């Protein structure tokens, strides 16, 4: 069975003004289906860039990324968009919800963009809203929710199209410890009960413990691709 995510000699360079900056240098990682992987590293190490490249939000300078047996660099804009709707779900540190849409609308966004009939997703929506425990908030807009509630909406949005992979960029970076615990438990439940592959970027060892493997990135290189550890 192919890996859920695989990178081959992945490089990413930026230009800061006229100065070239090597963010990622020949990264090779392999993430199996059903894994809960945490990418860790100091600020500026390139961990978020790696996550965005895996989700097709950014283009590599060199190297290849595979989601299952699909190689991303060969995809057109439309194919990449479809991939993001169906194959991956993103969760961001600052939730990134659309402010003028309700909880329900935010969750249904990938479905709407996929051209599917929203009425066909009524049951799925109900189930996800129950999972994220937001039944009484479905008609609210993001500014009427707490940080934890907003992040749960983001997680629900990431799940609505039943993607295989959840990519989370510091999902608890903006939350207090109690909410952090709630969100991490939710991600672990999704990983264990729904079998989704979860890749999160985090600074915190505490949140990394919810996963089963840690990839350490430092100065654009994988410094230590850890083994699976006991929960």
């Amino acid at each position, binding site marked *: 069975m192919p890996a859920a995510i695989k990178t081959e000699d992945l490089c990413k360079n930026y230009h800061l003004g006229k100065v070239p900056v090597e963010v990622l240098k020949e990264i090779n990682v392999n993430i199996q289906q059903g894994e809960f992987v945490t990418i860790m590293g100091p600020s500026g190490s390139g961990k978020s860039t790696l996550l*965005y490249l895996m989700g097709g*939000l950014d283009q590599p300078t060199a190297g290849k990324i595979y989601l299952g047996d699909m190689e991303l660099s060969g995809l057109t804009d439309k194919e990449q968009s479809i991939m993001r709707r169906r194959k991956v779900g993103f969760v961001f540190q600052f939730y990134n919800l659309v402010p*003028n849409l309700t909880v329900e609308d935010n969750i249904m966004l990938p479905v709407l963009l996929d*051209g599917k009939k*929203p009425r066909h997703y009524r049951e799925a929506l109900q189930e996800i809203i129950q999972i994220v425990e937001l039944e009484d908030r479905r008609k609210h807009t993001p500014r009427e929710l707490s940080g934890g509630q907003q992040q749960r909406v983001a997680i629900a949005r990431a799940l609505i199209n039943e993607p295989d992979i959840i990519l989370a960029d510091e999902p608890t970076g903006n939350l207090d410890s109690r909410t952090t615990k709630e969100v991490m438990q939710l991600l672990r439940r999704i990983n264990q009960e729904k079998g989704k592959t979860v890749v999160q970027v985090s600074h915190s060892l505490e949140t990394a413990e919810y996963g089963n493997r840690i990839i350490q990135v430092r100065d654009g290189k994988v410094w230590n691709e850890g083994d699976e550890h006991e929960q």
Partner: protein
Amino acid sequence: MGIIIKYILKNIWEKKFRTFLIVISVTCSAALFFASSGISGTLTAMYEDQLRMASGNADLIIRANERSPSSTFRLDPGEVSGAALVAGEISMGASYRLPDANGRGGQTDSRRLHLRGFHLDELQELNPVMFSEVGTGREFAGNWIILSRIFAEEEGYKTGDSIDIEINGASRRFSVWGIAYPTGLFRDSPQSEQLTAVIPRETVASYQGLRGQVSRAYVVLEPEAEEAEVQQALQQIYRRYEVEPPFTQADLSAMLGVIVMPLYLMTSMVLMISIFIIYSTFKVITVERLPVIGTFRSIGATRRMTDWVLMGESLAYGLLGGVLGNAAGIGVLYLIASILATDPWSGQMDFSIEFGVFQMAGAFFLAVGVSLISSWIPIRRVSKTPIKELVLNLVEGSSRKKNWKTPAAILIGVTGWILPRVAPHDWSLPLSILGVFMTMTAVIFAIPLITNVFLKVFEGLLGVLFGNLGILAAKNLKDNTNILNNITLLTIGISVLLMINTISYSVGIEVLNAYRDWKFDIMVSVYQADRSVEQSLRAIPGVNGTYAAREYRTAIQVKDPDYTLRHLQGVNPASYQEYMAFRPDGDPQKLLEKLSRGRYIIVADMMRHILQLEVGDRIIMDLPSGLQTYEVIGFYDSLMMNGSNAMIDERYYRLDLQEPYPERFYVRVDEGADPNAVMADIRSRFRQRGVWGDTIKNFEAMNDEYNNQIFTILKAFSVLAMIIGIFGVFNNYIISFIQRKRSLAVMKSVGMSKFQSAAMIMAEALTGGCIAGLTGILGGITILTGIPYILEAGGIPINIHFATNYFGIALAGGVIIALTASLSPALRGSKLNVVDAIKYE
């Protein structure tokens, strides 16, 4: 302080388009205010100049009126204290037969001459003639004539040449005494066929058998003399003649009101757009400045200091707009004056623009004021925000729902609708204007509600048209401040354009209707037209029938109730309806028959409305025969002289107005006959008597031209308002894109393609444009329902006629502007870098 100024200037410089937008709004408002406040003075000077051309330095004119025993009088030889000069004039009509080659298409073979008789020394004191050629050493007496240079050059005359002129049917030979530049009495009027020539006063008098008499006298006062005293003294001498200034300020004001009031109205509309643009732009500016304001406050800046940073920016825009507004205002004023100087009735007028410190200071302070006041509310909001919220960037956008807007819209709208309808007559103009502004404000307040209702109703349709993207577009539009701002700007712009174009269209229709009421082809007036004139007219080939119209156009004072009647007709009940449409309340023929039975009067609807008249009421009119009481027997629909008109029977007209001759004739031509050819024959037949007139088609064309002049200016104002609005819309779309970058990136992160991004933005624009078009139409209709009250209060009763195609154009215009303005955001949105937009808060 230096740092603050540097910071303000840097901000202004960095946001060039925004600066341009605010400055152009302020500049336009100031320029239009400048022009509106300056036009009165400029036109007064222009008309005064025009009148001075005819009456020179005269401060008073003595002439015969309807109560005078004769149309001429002898000048009193005694001196009048305070009068430096009393210059008599007697004039007459004549004609100059053109050589055959100069005949105009065979229709006109002569040119009318207005021979004005003066003593040259008096004329030179009163209204100096500027000679380009003059014969020296000859006394200006006998058969000498002074020609205008234009005529002399056209016909090849030089000083000393002989010229044959037809006077009272006989050819008279004159010698050219001098050639005058076309100024003063000799001013050129391209539209007028009549030429002026000056001959010795006694020569004219002798041709008319009126030796020693004058038809009018021009009085120039001594520098220190009191006009009223001299007027009174002259009135004592010339008891049964009129002694009046050449024109009064009241006459001028009445004439200028028609032009100045609409200009101020349009300026107010432009001002409304400017205030809205500055207010909405400053809301964005203040949000952008929050972190810096927070930093300033955290390091010890007081609230007043940070207010100054923002107010300083606003002040800078106001100062710049004030200076540019003054400069642009001079240009606008010149443009308006040059358009109005082309008078289709009397030719091109000379003009120079007149303005002073009042206009300049007024426009300048308006610019500064509008900028400061419009930006004050957003600035005040920031000023009240606690430092902690500023530093931590916890200030929420202005997306709070404004629940007060809908009830406010209803309250203001209803009040605005009622006001013009219940306003007492004396207050009807200001209250009607206020009412129109209130209803427009109500529409603006109702825009969020209208938008939400529209989206609710059409969300399904958008879904059908654009699929899920249409549904998303509809959701994005809900409570989106920038889109609402766009809709508001377009609404004001479209409403104003719709209003001006509909009024212009309505005036066109009304004019057309008025001329359709005339069931004849030519209107002609012949000096002292007795029955033989009418018979001669009927004998002209092509003339099918004539109606002798008795019309009194000199203001008649109605004593009870108090009113000035502008137009009184003495009608012939037997044939009136053959020549004029007559739409009374009730049976027309019966009413006309009753009219002939006594001193009865039928009053136009507008006059009835103003005087609150009922059938059976009596009105007392001050007529040449004295005070006469007439009983009102009916009312009719007529906008002649703006509805200030009435009709009595011709028998009583002749008696009470002491007018033996008909004022003019309505002439109907045979089917297939060319009215222009018949008119040429009439001119030729009555050349010696003095004839005035034209075909109805030509009158209509001149009327149209005159109306078009005013509407050209008003349309230009409304287009300007629309252009500023469009700039605002473009700016708002860009602001909206910048503010929505993150949302768009989020959508891309969950699978929105470039095409979908562009399509969604365009769907939003299309929907927003449709809403703006509809609210613009609603605003336009709302204004237009109040406009008749304003016009009526201003003495111009016009029915509003809606042109349905304008509604279509308004809707399409809204959509096109919105789509065009969203092209750039759509393109930029599709190329958006997701990571950059999402990653940084």
